[in-house]
Structures are given as structure tokens and as C-alpha cells.
């Protein structure tokens, strides 16, 4: 199965993402590889400090924006919620959302990584 088909099964709106790039499928694939790099570089971990999470907001905000533009829907929606919850000082609820999304996030990233290395 191709990367894009696998990603569709993992809830990524591949068609919407490609449409945003004027139908350029190969550009979309390249962007997904860059997205993988970005996710690796700015890991948002659930063990963040409950009193000091400004950097977590910034990282989550950036990931949300990129995920949204590539229509990586599960990650976009989860990080959107995380940003909102942290901005309204609800770190425990934000942590719960993050913990919930991590398994699917891992699958999406593994899928991209597999094809990036292929």
C-alpha cells in the first residue's frame, strides 16, 4: 500500500491536503517527510511542568498549524485542543488529550518514516 493510502486509513485527509497544494501529490509527500522531521525536532511530551508550559504551547501551536495545512486531521485537532486547554490553564486536561493522541500520532509518523526510508 502506498504511503498516501496508509495515511488515509489513519485518518489523514490526504485529498484535502493535496488539493491545498494545487493537486501536487509529490509535493504533498515531500511535505509529509518534512512534517516528520518537524515532529521529531519539537516533541511535545506529556511530562511537562504544570506551572511552566509556555514552550509547550508554542511547540503545540506550530505543530497544529503545520498539521492543519497538511490535513493531518488527528494531530491537527488534538494539538488545537491542547493549545486551547493550556491557554486556559487546564494542563491536566491538555495532558489527557496529548496522551490520547500519542498512539495514532506514532502510527502516522511510523508510516511516514517507513516510506521515507524506503
Amino acid at each position, binding site marked *: 500500500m502506498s504511503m498516501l493510502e496508509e495515511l488515509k486509513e489513519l485518518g489523514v485527509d490526504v485529498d484535502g491536503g493535496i*488539493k491545498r497544494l494545487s493537486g501536487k501529490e509529490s509535493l504533498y509527500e515531500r511535505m509529509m517527510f518534512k512534517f516528520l522531521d518537524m515532529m521529531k525536532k519539537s516533541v511535545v511530551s506529556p511530562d511537562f511542568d504544570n506551572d511552566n508550559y509556555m514552550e509547550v504551547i508554542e511547540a503545540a501551536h506550530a505543530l497544529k498549524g*503545520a498539521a492543519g495545512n497538511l490535513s493531518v486531521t488527528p494531530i491537527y485537532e488534538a494539538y488545537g485542543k491542547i493549545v486551547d486547554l493550556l491557554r486556559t490553564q487546564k494542563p491536566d486536561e491538555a495532558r489527557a488529550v496529548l496522551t490520547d493522541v500519542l498512539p495514532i500520532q506514532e502510527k502516522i509518523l511510523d508510516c511516514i518514516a517507513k516510506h521515507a526510508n524506503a
Partner: protein
Amino acid sequence: MDKEKTILIVDDVEINRIILADIFEENYNIVEASSGSEAIQLINGNPDIAAVLLDLLMPGVSGLGVLEDMNNTGKIKSIPVFLITAAESDAVLMEGYHLGAVDVIRKPFMTQFLQCRISNVIELYAHRNALEDIVARQVAQLKEINQSMVETLATIIEFRDCESGEHVKRIGKFTRIMMTEVSNAYPEYYLPKKEIDKIVTSSILHDIGKISIPDSILNKPGRLTAEEFDIMKQHTVKGCEILQNIPDIMDKGIYSYSYDICRHHHERWDGRGYPDGLSGDDISIWAQVVAVADVYDALTSERVYKAAYSREKAVEMIYNGECGTFNPKLLKVFRGALEQL
């Protein structure tokens, strides 16, 4: 659509920059900045930038910081800025609008609308900037025409006065030097350069009223009788009457300076001048400056009724009060000003 226009994309996330670049690169040149400080450098160094797509939340200088810099440099007036936002607070977006941003681009990007919105605004700004250029050129032309009309008028009067026209030029030059000196030396007399420029233009009209003085008095080789002198003194008031009849040939500022200078360039610090017998700082500083310049130039020039005095003799006469009393602060800068003549 031409590709001479450039869009600057500012976002610290490369994916967002690439997606935006992909949307616009068919019709525009694209430059990218990954930080606020890089964006500021590009905006200030690239005259072809027609629009800025600006992320708000970036490490270091934020999008708002870039907007503030564009306000400081005035670039915000000619370059439309679109804020890229995922979900910044309303307060941040409002601040962006207050700093001159024209619109907000929300992530995820809506490609087809983005192209239309941004292209429309770029065209609108290009049209507005072109109109502003035309207006600025026309204003400059009008100013030149005004200036040359004023100079022509002043020169005509000089010729009538058997002068070469050089007198008014010297008065203008000396007025600029003296006004600049006195403005720099005394805060109470401070005036911005723009105002000094107007005063210089106005100074050359100081004797416009002489056009109404009969030749027999104006060009009399000998000393004037008391009665003739009374008529001669009328050139100050007559000058104002002439100006009142031609207010439209000059802008309001120049008209008001010219009027004041015409009327009061023969007033003296001790109140013994004419026509109103004003004293001290009841006489405007520009009328005082033109008075000194006029006296100095008259002393050092040959006239039908006298030979030219040397520079040293003229200075001595002015300091001795032989030509009336002048503001001591003005006399303090007078010598320094002379050296620049």
C-alpha cells in the same frame, strides 16, 4: 499578471512557507524569512516587496515586532501585510490590525480564496501607491512653480529698485543661515527645517511694497526728507496690501510668514522701528532675522545714495546700534552666521 512583484513569506515553520510559496510562485517572485529579524532586513532592503504574509508567533522578533518596525520606517503605508494565524487570541489580532495589518490568513490555508484576496489587495495597493506618486510629483511641481513666481515677483521689485536681483538672493541665503543658527542655539526660537524653508522663501518678498513707492523717492540719490521718509516707510504696509491681493499664489504658511516679514522687517528690539513700533519678542524671530540680514546687506552694498561699507565696518555699525537696536541673542549668533556666508 506580471512577475515583477514580490511576496515575502514570513513563518518559522518551513512547511507553511513552502505551501504559501507554492500558491503564489506562479504569479509572483517569492522571498522567504524564517524569523522576524530576517523579515525586517528583507523588507528594508528589497524595494520590490508588494506584500508580506506574516506569521505572528515566532521565536525572537514576533510578527507584531515586524509590524512595529514597518510602522517606524513607514513601510506599512505602502506594503500590505497579511497576518498568518492558527488561532491567536482576539487581542493579538486586534493589535495586529491596529499596527496596520490589512487582513488575516487562517491556517489551514484556503488556497483558492487566498490567491484572490491577496492578489486583489496587492493590485489595490499598487494602484494607490502609483496615485500617491503622481500626487507627490504634482505637489512638488506646484511648489516649484510657487517658488519661481515668488522669486520672479521679488526680482521685478529689485530691478525697479535699481538692484540686480542679487539682493533678494543674498537675503534668502543669510536668512537661512541666521534662522538655522538661532534655532539651534535657543530652544525658544527653535523651528523645524520645513518652517525655516518657508521663512527663507518668504524673506525674499520683504520689500515687495517698494513697488508702490514713487521712483523719485525710491531711487533718490541723496538723503530723503522727513516727508519722503514717511512715504518710504509705507512700503512695509503696502507690501502687506499687495500680499492680501495675491494670497493664492503661495501656500498658507508662506503667505503668513511673508505678511509678517513685509510688515515687521523694519521694527527694532527697543520699539523704535516702524510701522507698528513693536518691541522685543513681540516681533517674530523671522522678522527680526530678516531685519538684520536686510541691514547688513544694505550696508555692504552700493546704493544710489551711498557707497558700500566694508564687512568689518558694517558689523561694527550693527553692533554699535547705528542701524537700530537688535535682539542681543541674535547678535550673538550674527558673527558665526557671517562666517558661513
